[in-house]
């Protein structure tokens, strides 16, 4: 048993950060260290809000915490309340039934704050566009700073988006 427990410690699984294949991303990444250090001291608190997703996005956000991606090494962490958050990471098309709750969560988040719309649904409701039960993308309800594409965005895409946010963009 002891062997099992120590195995993970002997050979770390953590991978190096995601490759910055996009020229714009490379440019942003150069800014990340300086900007996030200057503004937040390499500490960004994220509150996730599911505004109506199918749960696919949540599974991949969870994966950010596993030993392969180890989100916290980037100075990013998930918090339990919007009142502790700098960033709202919003998934899903905003359903009409979640609109109020999303707005109230945003109102409960202290300024300065950012909003990331994560996933294809959060951009424009994706396959759920046009439904009577859906308002639309997150941008219909909140000011969005960064959008992360993908259905669902995989952990590397999520990391890229989160790193891109820390470019010292003026918060709302």
């Amino acid at each position, binding site marked *: *048993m002891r062997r*099992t*427990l120590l195995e*993970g410690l002997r050979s770390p*699984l953590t991978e190096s950060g995601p490759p910055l294949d996009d020229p714009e991303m490379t440019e942003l990444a150069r800014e990340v260290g300086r900007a996030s250090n200057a503004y937040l001291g390499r500490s960004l608190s994220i509150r*996730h*809000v*599911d*505004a*109506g*997703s*199918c*749960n*696919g*996005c*949540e*599974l*991949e*956000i*969870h*994966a950010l*915490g*596993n*030993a*392969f991606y180890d989100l916290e090494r980037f100075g990013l962490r*998930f918090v*339990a*309340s*919007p009142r502790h958050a700098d960033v709202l990471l919003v998934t*899903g*098309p905003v*359903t*009409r*039934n*979640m*609109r*109020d*709750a999303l707005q109230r*969560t945003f109102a409960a988040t202290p300024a300065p704050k950012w909003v990331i719309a994560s996933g294809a649904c959060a951009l424009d409701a994706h*396959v*759920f566009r*046009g*439904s*009577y*039960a*859906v308002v639309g993308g997150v941008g219909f309800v909140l000011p969005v700073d960064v959008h992360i594409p993908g*259905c*669902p965005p*995989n952990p590397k895409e999520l990391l890229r988006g989160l790193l891109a946010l820390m470019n010292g963009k003026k918060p709302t």
Partner: protein
Amino acid sequence: MMTEHAHAWTEATRKLAAGEATLVSLWGDGQSVNMALSEPGRRDLDLLHLPCPEGTFPSVAAHHPPASRLERTIADLHSLVAVGSPDPRPWLDHDAWLIRAPLGATKPRGEPRPRYAFLTAEGPGLHQIPVGPVHAGIIEPGHFRFHCSGETVARLEERLGYTHKGVGWLMRGATLDRGAVLAARISGDSTVAYQIAFARAAEAALGVEAPARALWLRAVMAELERLANHIGDFGAVCNDASFALMLAHCGILRERVLRACDAAFGHRLMMDMITPGGVVNDLSDDGVYTIGELIETLQDVFPRLVNLYDNTASLQDRTVRTGVLSNALAMQYGCGGFVGRASGRDFDARRAYPYAPYDHLAFEVPRRIEGDVNARLWIRAHEITQSLDILEQALAGLPAGLCRIDIPERGGEGHALVEGFRGDIFVALRVNEDGTIANAHARDPSWFQWPLLEAAIEGNIVADFPIINKSFNCSYSGQDL
């Protein structure tokens, strides 16, 4: 004078109430309602159809409570009223849509409704704790209303529907291809199971069969999905007892499963991989090798994690006799999946209504009777072993040939019952002559598990709610649709 349909409906309701049959689903289709029942010893489900020209039908829930939320949904979506219903409150309709009865005689919303009335609990010292819809973790939204006496929960009432996206409405008139894309997004953690259920229902409606290789590949994907979810949740439940080490190890294994899925099929969760008529991507020899390696890794590591669970008394102190679900309730509600099987309900759609390739594979359906968090964890652990066995057999016996055929453009009706990781998923489809969807219904296993979570928490302490809830792991999006 009762019509033949109405008579059959009443008789079916009697059987349900007497425990002679299990309710599989209850759903609307325009101005009519449908019911699906499972009876022991029958080779297929019984389907009933009842036209409702007056906009009403006799309530099933009046005699059989598991039908209640389904009837409330029919009232919300179709404006068909269950006469004699014990609970006429809306369910999915939170008074936020611009219309009423989107799937029936649609009309503008009109006057706002009175505020939703939660059930009450009264007594000295009782207090309420409202939780959600936005929760503290990275999970889906829903509202839980606790009535507590000190730390002890006297009553929990769920209020769901927050993620309702109008899937039934979006499917109506859509092509089967688009229907499959929507079905893949009913509940992201069960995307493979929903894709299979949708494809099988469509194939049944059109009277075609997917090639053998496609059916076997579907099973490979289904078992990989089951593994990913069971492993991830095994760690997450232990984490809710503050045993974070298990989450760390299970997180690594789950990631290895998802990476193997990505390498073998081209998507980590395997979305949009299955279509009526077959599967989208064939599995290459490299893919078979990747999955084979994954199986070896899991067979090596997972038993050691189970052993760790089995030898950690402080962890079992939190799981044993916590959140007990009785056998009587599991049976009455036709509670599927590991939740039902941990409470003694011996049902698995892969065995009860066998579909290819499961009729050619040997596997066991684990069952326990304690009904607590511990039993649900053990069922998951056993099912992981079984899925690994099934995967080995499926890869070894994978037939050669086509993995997809073209489907004809014609109409029909069909249904399917598929065992997802969470339990049996039911899909019923009615297809127009031009090949578009006339009516689509998908019933997540959570419909018959969520109400039982309310029962399982009673008498437990509030602080144990997260671990009990996670041990059920019901779907929000799957039941909200």
